[in-house]
């Protein structure tokens, strides 16, 4: 018993280190001054960030990913919130079907969904042109996260405030805009942030459905990593980690924790 407690503590601390180690190491590697990812590093420098800033492929990929994630998040927020409203307020017997259906993109293996979408879009004659397939895939991947977060925040709210607004003469739309929407704003924000990050980082869907031309950041990074070993990839990864961190911190400050 005396021995068990320090052993357990050791295991726990190791797991926390294990969780953070690969992420910390990527950030450290990006500061390496050498030409290759050697360890110990040959001095500290920001030169790989400079190289990255001058590399159009990665800059384009970041912008492309951000725009794609913004558009997918916008669509998911609208239809995901509608579905959450239906699920919490109106669904009766079919509630379980709605829930499972909305979570399907999350439950099914992403790579299989991507392949299924690829075939489907070829069968209807569109293929991977115009980024329609890619965009649809990103909306699908982000939808469950909006649905889950908005559902949680709706379930914590009392429907009677809305009914009160309606009794006082507010239209259905006004009641939603002035009462319901402000109440579920934190859920919308969390869902939106989640959706953006998922879309920004997702791999399988983008890998299979990307058309000719520009590709999202994870795909460019993966292609680069297969043949290159410079710390530039680490610099790109660090920037992507920082973007996420900024996004999460800002939303945490603005909307607080649920």
């Amino acid at each position: 018993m005396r021995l068990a407690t320090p052993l357990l503590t050791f295991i726990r601390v190791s797991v926390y280190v294990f969780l953070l180690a690969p992420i910390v190491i990527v950030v450290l590697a990006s500061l390496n001054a050498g030409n290759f990812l050697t360890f110990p590093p040959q001095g500290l420098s920001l030169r790989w960030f400079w190289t990255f800033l001058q590399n159009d492929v990665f800059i384009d990929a970041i912008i492309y990913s951000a725009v794609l994630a913004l558009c997918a998040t916008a669509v998911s927020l609208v239809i995901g919130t509608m579905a959450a409203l239906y699920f919490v307020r109106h669904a009766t017997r079919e509630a379980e079907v709605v829930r499972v259906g909305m979570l399907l993109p999350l439950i099914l293996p992403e790579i299989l969904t991507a392949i299924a979408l690829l075939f489907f879009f070829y069968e209807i004659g569109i293929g991977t042109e115009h980024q329609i397939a890619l965009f649809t895939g990103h909306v699908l991947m982000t939808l469950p996260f909006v649905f889950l977060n908005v559902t949680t925040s709706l379930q914590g709210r009392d429907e009677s405030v809305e009914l009160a607004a309606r009794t006082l003469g507010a239209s259905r739309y006004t009641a939603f805009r002035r009462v319901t929407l402000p109440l579920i704003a934190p859920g919308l924000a969390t869902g939106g942030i989640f959706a953006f990050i998922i879309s920004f980082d997702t791999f399988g869907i983008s890998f299979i459905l990307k058309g000719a031309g520009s590709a999202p950041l994870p795909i460019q990074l993966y292609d680069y990593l297969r043949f290159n070993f410079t710390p530039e990839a680490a610099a790109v990864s660090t920037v992507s980690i920082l973007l996420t961190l900024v996004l999460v911190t800002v939303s945490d400050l603005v909307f607080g924790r649920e």
Partner: protein
Amino acid sequence: MKRLRSSLLIAPSAALIFLFIVLPYITVLVMSFRAPAEGQPYGEGFSLEGYTHFFNESYYAMSLPQTMFLGLLTTLVCLVLAYPVALHIAFASKRWRGFLYGIVLSPLLVGIVVRSYGWTILLGNSGVINSTLRNMGLIQKPLPLMYNDFGVVLALAHVFLPFMVLPLLSALQAMDPAITQAARSLGASRFTIFRRVTFPVSMPGVQSGCILVFVLAISSYVTPALVGGMRVKTTTLLVVDALIDQFQWPFGSAMALILAVSAGIVVLIFARLTRMKWT
């Protein structure tokens, strides 16, 4: 009328899921029975060749047990690592809980490509671990940490660990602390309490965590590709190779479905072994 208006809320999502999930999956099923062809994705008519090709070629057939093995090992490693952490967080003070929760969730905010890349920096032949050991004079030749099952399982366990901690945590937090106090006051040792009370109570979390991690692990692409360096052949890697690089759509679809059905069988056996209630 009221019913009709409210169903407009679910209509866009329902249409999206039906059109872009249900129909495409049916397309995969149909595709797997189509005839193969040279120079184009698939030919005229239907055949079972996609399925027979998989089982006749040992290169493909052997990938299936290999993938299941990697998936099961990853699940086991995740369970062993996640349990002490989930216990720790579940019973930590409120101030610490948020912080520890953040550590567990933070890997999820970093893309899977970046995380796998982090492991290649750590495990490579001239990576952090091998270089450190060599500089300390402990080894002459680099240890084979990457491009093998070991590296792939380690990286997969890292990538999917949060998916094991979260269900465990929700099961443990739902537990009434009075039960363990009762067991303790009745004279049970801490190990006995864990074996007879805590672990059985957390069983639903163990089940859902294991199923989630197993399914995610066997269907992941980036991690085995980067950390395994294409030397560890999982069925998922072969599926993507057949579909994207070789343009063999019926064969690739058949292979994907064989993997999905096998995963389903493993999950069912696991659920039966742990006596899960299907309601």
